[in-house]
């Protein structure tokens, strides 16, 4: 039987993510989730196009490994395909997907610790995947390399909070929602992380 696409009546879109995600994209994501919930597997494609980059970035910044980040993205989409029943209740698709990515990254880190192959602190130094460098610009390449080295010395929670706040331009409340901590804790992580980063990079705040 051909699955029937269902468009859930749109609820009020949450305000905390409209800062970076246009309403049109939010609408597309909600429609794709509704179609996926109705059994239309082709809805995975627009979801990938909308969220894969953010997800990959989050996992890479948390784990420091490009390989692990790719695994996290795959696992998130597999879970989306499997947990279709819950998708109609999603109000903020971006926060939902990022929260899922955050949890899977944590699970992977715990598994790794259990296996005791490599510690959490060691992993970022092995395979850095935080930033892309523009090789045509020598100055930027140096900047990126320095920033990556400095980032790898930050605790994973601070790195993750900085990524969500600076690169995805999420509010502290949204960062807290994704990482399952209070707004205050999220803000503190960002502030302390940036302060430490400045110290490591040797730059002053204006």
């Amino acid at each position, binding site marked *: 039987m051909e699955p029937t696409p269902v468009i859930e009546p749109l609820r009020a879109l949450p305000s905390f993510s409209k800062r970076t995600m246009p309403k049109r994209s939010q609408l597309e994501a909600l429609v794709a989730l509704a179609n996926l919930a109705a059994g239309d*597997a082709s809805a995975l*494609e627009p979801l990938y196009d909308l969220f894969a980059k953010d997800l990959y*970035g989050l996992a*890479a*910044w948390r784990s420091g490994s490009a390989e692990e980040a790719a695994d996290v993205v795959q696992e998130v989409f597999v879970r989306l395909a499997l947990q279709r029943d819950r998708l109609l209740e999603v109000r903020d698709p971006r926060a939902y997907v990022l929260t899922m990515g955050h949890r899977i990254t944590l699970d992977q880190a715990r598994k790794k610790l259990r296996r005791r192959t490599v510690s959490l602190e060691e992993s970022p130094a092995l395979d850095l995947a935080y930033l892309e460098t523009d090789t045509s610009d020598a100055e930027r390449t140096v900047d990126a390399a320095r920033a990556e080295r400095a980032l790898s010395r930050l605790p994973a929670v601070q790195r993750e909070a900085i990524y969500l706040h*600076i690169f995805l331009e999420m509010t502290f409340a949204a960062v807290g929602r994704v990482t399952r901590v209070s707004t205050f804790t999220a803000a503190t992580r960002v502030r302390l992380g940036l302060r430490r980063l400045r110290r490591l990079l040797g730059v002053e705040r204006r």
Partner: protein
Amino acid sequence: MKKNHELFAGLRTASPPDDLRDRVLDAARRSAEERTTVDRHEIRRPVGIHHPWVWRAAVLVLLLGHVLVSFWPKPRTELPETLAVRQMRSAEQPEAPEAVALVRVVPLGFP
């Protein structure tokens, strides 16, 4: 002297590799298809048992055992008609009448 956002000015976060899209979508589609063919009852049933007859026989044996235990006549134990209750005495000591003699207490100045 830089603002927070300027710390990463000109730098981009790493993008997912190009081949990841197909890999992810294939895996997700496969999972979605598997999910549609296996329903909740199928998951709960022990599909891993290679000999379904063993499973059925085990259920039958348990049912039969339950029926036997429930309806099998139980042996009755006869109760004695009378029960001898031993009288307990307190070391056969005679009561001391003096000990219970009442003493009237009258306060001073009371008629």
